[in-house]
C-alpha cells in the first residue's frame, strides 16, 4: 500500500516478526558508551591542547547521541524479518529504510554472535552469510532460544533448496 509520503512499503506488510523489546537496552548502552568515549576524547583534546573545535565536536556528538537515545525504541521496533516461502525478508530503519531479500538456497552459513550486554539480557544476533560480501543481513536482538531455533530452521531450509553458487 504505497501512501502519499513516498515511503517504501512492501505488500507483505502484515507478517513481520519483531525482535525482542529488550534489545533497546543493548542499543542504549552502546550509544551511551560510544557517546561518552567520543565526548571524553573531545574533552581531553580541549583541555590538553586547547583545541576550540574539539569542544564543538564533542557537543555535536552529545546532541546526536541524545537524539539517537530518544529514537532508540522506535528504531528497534522497525527491525523485522519474515520467513517467506522461498526467501527471508529483512527490514530495518525509520529515517534510512532498508529491505533485503535473501533466497534460502543462497545462504552459505548462519552465524550466532552475542555481545556482553546482549548475553546479560539473554539475547543473541543472527547473521546470514551469502557468497556476496555485501549482503550483510544481521538480525539483532533475538532471544537465545529464538536465535537457535531460527538458525536450525534456516539451515534446514537452505539445505533443502541448495543451488550451487
Amino acid at each position, binding site marked *: 500500500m504505497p501512501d502519499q509520503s513516498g515511503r517504501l*512499503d512492501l505488500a507483505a506488510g502484515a507478517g513481520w516478526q519483531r525482535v525482542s523489546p529488550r534489545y533497546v537496552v543493548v542499543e542504549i548502552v552502546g550509544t551511551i558508551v560510544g557517546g561518552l568515549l567520543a565526548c571524553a576524547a573531545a574533552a581531553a583534546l580541549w583541555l590538553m591542547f586547547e583545541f576550540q573545535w574539539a569542544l564543538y565536536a564533542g557537543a555535536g556528538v552529545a546532541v546526536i547521541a541524545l537524539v539517537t537515545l530518544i529514537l532508540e525504541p522506535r528504531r528497534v521496533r522497525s527491525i523485522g524479518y519474515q520467513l517467506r516461502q522461498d526467501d527471508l525478508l529483512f527490514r530495518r530503519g525509520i529515517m534510512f529504510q532498508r529491505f533485503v531479500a*535473501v533466497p534460502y538456497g543462497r545462504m552459505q552459513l548462519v552465524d550466532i554472535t552475542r555481545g556482553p550486554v546482549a548475553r546479560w539480557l539473554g539475547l543473541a544476533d543472527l547473521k546470514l552469510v551469502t557468497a556476496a560480501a555485501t549482503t550483510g543481513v544481521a538480525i539483532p536482538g533475538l532471544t537465545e532460544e529464538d536465535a537457535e531455533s531460527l538458525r536450525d530452521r534456516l539451515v534446514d531450509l537452505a539445505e533443502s533448496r541448495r543451488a550451487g553458487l
Partner: protein
Amino acid sequence: MSSLADGEWHRLHPATPLLRGGIFVFAAIGFILANLRERVLDVVFGIPVGSADPLEEIYRRGSVGWALLAVAGALVVILIAFSLSWRAHTFRVNDEIVEVRSGIVFRSNRKARLDRIQGVNIERPLIPRLFGAAKLEVSVAGQDANVPLAYLGSARADELRRDILRLASGARRPAAESVEPAREPGEGPSEPGVTVGGFARDRVVEFLAPELDPDAAPPESVVRIPPARLFGSIVLSGFTVFLLVGVIALAVGGAIGSSGWLPIAIVPALIGSAGYFLSRLTRSLRFSIAGTPDGVRVGFGLLSTSNETLPPGRVHAIGISQPLLWRPFGWWQVRINKAGRSVSQGAAGEAGTTVLPVGTAADVARVLELILPGYTGEEQGAVIESGMHSRGGSDGFINAPRRAAWLRPFSWRRTGYTLSAGAVVLRRGIVSRELILVPLARLQSVRIDQGPVRRMLGLASARLHTVAGPVSASLAVVDAEEAVRLFEAVAAGAVSCATSDTSHRWNHPTGVFE
C-alpha cells in the same frame, strides 16, 4: 599417451623446480658470469684485474679445487632436495575431485570438488613458456582457494583441462582419444623432443601457435581486436587525461616558478606511466574469446600468456561500459564478476575479469552470446541495443522519474532497469555509459534503501548483491513504487531461476550430481 585424469597419482613436469626458482637460478648464473668475465679476460688477454673480487682471492690462495668441490656439493644437495620435493608433489583427478599432495617436512593436501569448479586457468609465464611448460590452476569459489598445478607440459596441460572440465560437466568418463589433435611425429609431451634440434623446433612451433586450438573452438565465434584499436583504447583512457592534466599543471608551474625540482618530479612519473601503458598493451595483445563445449575460453598476453576457461553458469554479473572518450569510436568494454579468482595474476589481476578489453557493439553482442547463453532473442537484442545507445525516454526500460533530476541531474533519463529472459538489466550513466546484466540464477540477494532525501522525492535506491568483482549492480534512483515492484519481482525471479538452473552440471542429463 594416457590421460592425466585417470584417477591415478601423477607427478608434475620434471623441470618444475628449475622453472619455479627460475629467477633465482638466472640471478645466480648472472652473478657467476659477471665474476668469471674478469677471470676470462685475465686468462685470455692477460689483462690484470683488481684483487677485490672473491673469485680472484680464491684463485690466488690456490684453493680452486676446494671451492669447486664446495660448489659441486652444494649443487648436489640442492638437486637432491629439489628432486625429493618434486617426487613428493603429486596430483590426481578422478570423477569427483582434483587432489594435490606436496611437501616432505610440512605436508599439505588439497582437494577441490569438480562440481564446484569456477574456472580452469592455464598460464604460461615467459620463461616456462620457452621451455614448453604451463601452469594449470583450478579455481573454486573463495579467496585463495585455488588448486595450482605448476608446471605441466604445455600440451598435457591443455589436455588435462579438457578432461577436468568434461568430468566436471557431469559426463562420467573422459572422452575417447578421438579428439587428439594432429601433432608432428616424434613429439611426446612427457619426454619432449629426442634431439636438441627437435626440442627447439617444437618450442618454436608452440610459441608461435595461436592461443586457441582451432579444433576446439568454432572459429566464427572469436572476437578479434585490431592492434590499432587496442592502442587507441589504451591511449584514450581516463589515465591519459589525468596524465595530461598533470603534465600541463607541472609545465605551467615550471614556467612561472623556478624549475629546479621539475625534472625530478616528471621523469619517474613518465617512466611509470610508460610502464603502465606498456603492460596494459602487452596484457591485452593477442586477446581472444571463444565458445567451447565446456565453457567460454578467454586468452590474452603477448609474452606471458594466460588462458582461462569459464564453464557455463559461472558468470555472476556482466558490466558493459563506455567511457566518454571511446564514444566517438563506438568502443565498449565488457567485464564480469566471477566467484573464482586467480591469485597469481598480481598487478595484472584485473585482466582476469575483463572478457572484452575493447570492441564494437557487434563484438559486445557476440561476447554476450557466449557468456550469457539464452539471452539471444529478438527482444533481448533490442534491450541490449537500447540499453547501450538510448538516451532515455520510453525505450523498454523503467526509467527514473523527472524528479530524480535533483539527485542525478544529467543521467536520470538513462537510469532504469528491466527484467527479461532470466536476467535483470540495469542501465545508468550519461557521461560514461554503463549497462549491467545480472543473471537471476546467480543473484545472492537484493536490497532497496530509502533515506530522508529520497523519501521527500518519492525515490529509492536499489542494489543487487552478487559475488565481489568489478561490476557493482546498483541503481541510485528509482521511483519508490517501482523499487518495491523491482524488489518483489527480483526476489521471486531469483528463487524460481535458481531452482530451474542446471548449468553447474552442464552436460549431465538431469543436471543433478549423484
